[in-house]
């Protein structure tokens, strides 16, 4: 096979993956399902998690010799885009990027790997901490004698998860431990986010936990997993933006004022084109970034690529979902119309793992450092 053939067969695999993920989500009820789950206050649907697992979703970026499909982040991105299109609340990016991202780098033989890939469980990752001023701060959460003490903040998927992968400090350095969701001395303070999902603030007081890995490998693997999840969250925002734009385009074609569809007015048309262009640029940029991350092994190079992806995706999603509300007019401000669900989900995904301003800064600092090194 020539290089072009290999390339196009990879493209073909991704196309098939996209098709099957889209069918699965559509059959399950599309974005209506997101509304129902939000209204029921039930977080996500464990049955859906199992169905996704059967389709191979969670193991998509896990190497084949570790029980995954070995298709890389590019394939993870395809799935994340489809998740974004129907604003599915299941912890897909969390699992592919963070939970499995950590485990496959630190303890690939652990039985939790297979359970995560099989959709039997989901695990949240608790790695950030809140300082006295409320902003992110250095880690102080301690692990000693098999017990955790301290707190963790901004834990996505805290409600509904079977346990927590906690990054903590012990006397001789960092450690990754596993605490069960119902562990003694674990208190979860739930904060509701714009899309109805929960963000957990955990506090541990002598909470029993099992050590999974220790030493310098822990922060390295964490940084890698965070980069993966960041890029996948960008892909999710791309899918979300695309669908929000389609919904808006349909709306301006059908909504009539002054006896004409509002989409016949040039000012509306030009705004729609703006959003379309922004969406296409974001899609191209983010997909390229994911492919680059697959062909790069140096974490110092991969991290800024993830930042580039997230910066672009957040910029696009913010603009598209907000303008989408404007183009819907007053009904866009109601909960009844789906477009609001997309705005709310975009708010949550933008804040998670750093917004556009944050990632531009990170990206530019890395670019400067690289320039100085040359």
């Amino acid at each position, binding site marked *: 096979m020539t290089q072009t053939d290999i390339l196009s067969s990879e493209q073909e695999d991704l196309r098939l993956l996209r098709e099957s993920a889209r069918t699965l989500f559509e059959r399950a009820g599309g974005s209506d399902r997101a509304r129902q789950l939000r209204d029921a206050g039930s977080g996500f649907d464990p049955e859906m998690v199992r169905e996704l697992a059967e389709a191979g979703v969670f193991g998509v970026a896990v190497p084949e010799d570790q029980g995954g499909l070995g298709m890389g982040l590019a394939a993870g991105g395809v799935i994340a885009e489809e998740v974004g299109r129907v604003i599915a609340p299941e912890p897909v990016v969390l699992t592919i990027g963070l939970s499995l991202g950590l485990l496959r780098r630190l303890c690939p033989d652990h039985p939790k790997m297979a359970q995560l890939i099989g959709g039997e469980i989901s695990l949240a990752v608790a790695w950030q901490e809140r300082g006295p001023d409320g902003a992110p701060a250095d880690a102080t959460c301690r692990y000693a004698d098999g017990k955790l003490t301290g707190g963790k903040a901004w834990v996505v998927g805290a409600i509904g998860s079977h346990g927590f992968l906690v990054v903590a400090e012990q006397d001789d350095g960092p450690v990754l431990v596993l605490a069960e969701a119902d562990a003694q001395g674990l208190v979860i303070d739930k904060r509701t986010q714009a899309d109805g999902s929960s963000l957990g603030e955990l506090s541990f007081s002598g909470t029993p936990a099992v050590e999974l890995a220790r030493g310098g490998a822990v922060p390295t693997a964490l940084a890698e997993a965070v980069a993966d999840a960041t890029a996948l969250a960008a892909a999710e925002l791309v899918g979300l933006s695309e669908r929000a734009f389609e919904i808006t*385009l349909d709306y*301006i*074609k059908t909504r009539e004022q002054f006896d*004409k*569809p509002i*989409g*016949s*007015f*040039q000012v*509306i*048309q*030009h705004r*729609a*084109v*703006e959003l*379309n*262009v922004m969406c*296409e*640029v*974001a899609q*191209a*940029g983010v*997909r*390229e970034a994911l492919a680059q991350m697959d062909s790069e092994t140096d974490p110092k190079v991969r991290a800024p690529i993830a930042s*580039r992806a997230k*910066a*672009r995706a957040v910029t696009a999603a913010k603009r598209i979902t907000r303008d989408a509300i404007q183009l819907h007019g007053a009904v866009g401000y109601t909960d009844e119309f789906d477009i609001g669900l997309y705005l709310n989900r975009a708010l949550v995904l933008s804040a998670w793992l750093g917004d556009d*301003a944050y990632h*531009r*800064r990170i*990206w*530019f600092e890395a*670019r*400067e450092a690289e320039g100085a090194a040359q």
Partner: protein
Amino acid sequence: MTDWNAISDVEFRKEVRQFFEAEYPEELRHLPHRPKFAEIEHWHRKLHAKGWVAPAWPAEFGGMGLNAAKLLIFYEEQQRWGVNRGRDMGVQMVGPLIIKFGTQEQKDYWLPRILSCEDIWCQGYSEPGAGSDLANLRTRAEIDGDDFVINGQKIWTTMAHDATHIFMLVRTDPDAPKKQQGISFLLAPMNQPGVDVRTITTLSGETEFCEVFFDNARTPRENLVGELNKGWTMAKALLSFERIFIGSPSLAQNALGQLESFARGRGAFDDPVFRDRFAQAALDVEDHAALYARFADQLKRGETLGADVSMLKIWVTECFQRITELMIEAAGPDGGSIGPLQVGNVSVDVLSSFYKARPTTIYGGSNEIQRNILSKAVLGLPG
């Protein structure tokens, strides 16, 4: 004759690069203005001897016969080394037109003269009342014996004062039911009493644009290309490759490189606001390049590009403008001064970049027209 398409992309790029680096005159690299032919004649002779004047033309007409993938590589290398496109209206526009729609006599006569630059062409499309609404053009051509007699005015005719011939859209049937009908494609000599050229001084003080007045100017009837009254369709057919070319990342990439060294030298990166705006612009350029690559891949697979390719031009030209505006900001009190500024070991002409960026959102179909096209042809919006 070499079959360039038979060699690998990598090999081809190497060969093109080597030729430019070895042969292109140093003093002509990254020329800040459009040269008259005399200024670049020595380079053109080398290119002509090599047989590389017309990369896109089929080999049987003296071109290189490059496919889309090779063509993009050729242009990328040209831009990379700052190789001037030369007086390429003949090669880019007239040649393809004649090859596609011309008679055998027209091909035999005109094509070799285009390659040798014996004839130097300018493009007569826009008129005072026909800019974005090009089909509104009024310059008349009427048959009189063996000639067409031309009356009217063209404007924004690039380098008409240094051209021997003009290819033009003229109205040959003023009574046609639609204004797009009744337009023909005509070739005419410039050196005759009925043609008067006046240069237009631009904002930047340059004179590359002209007005061309026709007062009973004449051209032989055999200089009609294609069918009478079918010029509009032909002109549109010529635009397909140009539409990706006009959206290529190079202008913005070059400007960004300039901005970076200039800003670095001036200490502008100490300002967090400037840093963020620079980062935005740099990411805009990088992500545009990703979208450009997507369209280029389409071409490489042999697919034709859709109307959506217009988005490249919108994005890159507006980005180019923002970059040149940042350059003025970084210049601070020098932001209003004409001419090169020396900063460290780089020399940057702040205002020349700024001026160069302004018409990019106007020419080649203004960005507003591009948005109209996208909204109708791609988004399917009504009206």
